[in-house]
């Protein structure tokens, strides 16, 4: 069952055609990752899905009543605005103490409730944003470059967290990312975006696609080789690591 269907989407921002002829869908429970160079319209696509950007053409269909959890790229909180994590979770609707604790724990932010958001590290803020997105038990989780600014262990940690959340809630995940190899390994499907969808499919298919290679070049060869290496054998039975 599809939660989200997009057809012939075009979006113009400040006169520039950022997205055109975008077709895609997300089915219940799958992890879909959007990769693409800077300025390829990845964030705009997510912002169009939540309704922050009006499409110029095309159609964005969401399953009626779909519960969406949205995690923005980062929270630009003014330091002049005093706000605790717990109070932040109460916006716009108050939530019970237990629900708040649960969401924080699931997002790996347990115990942060009393802290001021302005005092948190980047990684902590990301986890708080994830906790807030989990509050209404989303069927579709949208993550926009959620690991930007995190170091590699923190980013890997964050993605592990996402997979756990998906397992527990059974929600679909649509995320935008730069960390190609981590993301490709963790996704059911990858969509390579550059104003339009240049290729899409299972991670290994996309990695082989000439359009993808043209975009990301040889620089990612190592990461992709690593990725293929990990997946040339089955995870179910212990086997020899191929030389």
């Amino acid at each position, binding site marked *: 069952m599809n939660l989200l269907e997009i057809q012939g989407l075009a979006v113009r921002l*400040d006169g520039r055609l950022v997205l055109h002829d975008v077709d895609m869908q997300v089915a219940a429970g799958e992890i879909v990752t959007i990769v693409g160079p800077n300025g390829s319209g990845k964030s705009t696509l997510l*912002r169009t899905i*939540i*309704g*922050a950007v009006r499409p110029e053409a095309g159609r964005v269909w969401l399953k009626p009543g779909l519960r*969406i*959890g*949205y995690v*923005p790229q980062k*929270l*630009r*909180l*003014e*330091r*002049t*605005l*005093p*706000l*605790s994590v717990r*109070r*932040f979770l*109460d*916006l*716009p*609707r108050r939530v019970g103490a237990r629900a708040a604790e649960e969401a924080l724990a699931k997002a790996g932010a347990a115990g942060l409730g009393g802290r*001021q958001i*302005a005092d948190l590290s980047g990684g902590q803020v990301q986890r708080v944003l994830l906790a*807030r997105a989990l509050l209404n038990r989303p069927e579709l989780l*949208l993550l926009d470059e959620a690991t930007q600014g995190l170091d590699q262990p923190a980013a890997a940690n964050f993605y592990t967290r996402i997979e756990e959340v998906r397992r527990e809630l059974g929600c679909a995940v649509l995320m935008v990312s730069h960390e190609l190899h981590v993301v490709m390994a963790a996704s059911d499907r990858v969509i390579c975006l550059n104003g339009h969808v240049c290729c899409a499919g299972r991670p290994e298919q996309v990695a082989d696609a000439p359009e993808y290679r043209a975009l990301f070049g040889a620089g990612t060869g190592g990461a992709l080789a690593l990725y293929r290496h990990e997946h040339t054998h089955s995870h179910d039975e212990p086997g020899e690591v191929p030389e």
Partner: protein
Amino acid sequence: MSLFLTPFLIRAALAGLGVALATAPLGVFVVWRRMAYFGDAVSHGALLGVALALAVQMPLLWGVLPVTLALALAVAALAGRGVAADTGLGVLAHGALALGLVAASWIPGLRGDLMAYLFGDILAVGTGDLIALATGVVVIWAIVRWRWPALLLSTIDADLAVASGIRPARERLILMAALALVVALALKIVGALLISALLIIPAASARPWARSPERMVAVAIVLGALSALGGLALAVLADSPAAPTIVSVAVALFALSHMAGALRGGRS
């Protein structure tokens, strides 16, 4: 001491408290959203409203309110179109002031009173003004209480607000309308030049003492009221103009507050 219990001083004190109550819940948003210039643009433009009201012999508020509302909407539209906010608002703020001064010079009765509208005349506040102010305070608090969560979330992050089913553009419009109302109400009391000072300064002074948005409003009210009453008393004792004295006290409190906050190791 009896000097302070004369009716006009009591009315002035009440007016000062009313302005503190009206400005605090909006002033915090002006600070959080970096809208200082917006307050300037709208309040400076209020002079145009004064000229308009006097030209057609309407009650002041009925001339000022439409003008401040129109200006607020114009500014909101401009900001929505991505005109560099800083520059656009700077042009509007000073343009509105200049135009207001020119328009005021054409109204025969206004030339002499111009100072009163630029700097307010809190000692001349009448009972009718107080009633209008009290009504305004109730309306502003009703609006802010009604929209509080939506306004807060839109201020924190517009996209998060959208994802929660809130329309940030609408919230901003509501906020701007409330600001236009505050400006119209406070014009006679503190004057066009100093209204935005009372929006920004107590709210900014409250920051080191607040760990929640609500608390920041509460502290801003207290500091605003202290500035109003302290400034008024000083103005009477030193025979200085009331509104500038009030703002001076507010600035002194701002400096003290942030110094104390820094000493305490808090954020400023």
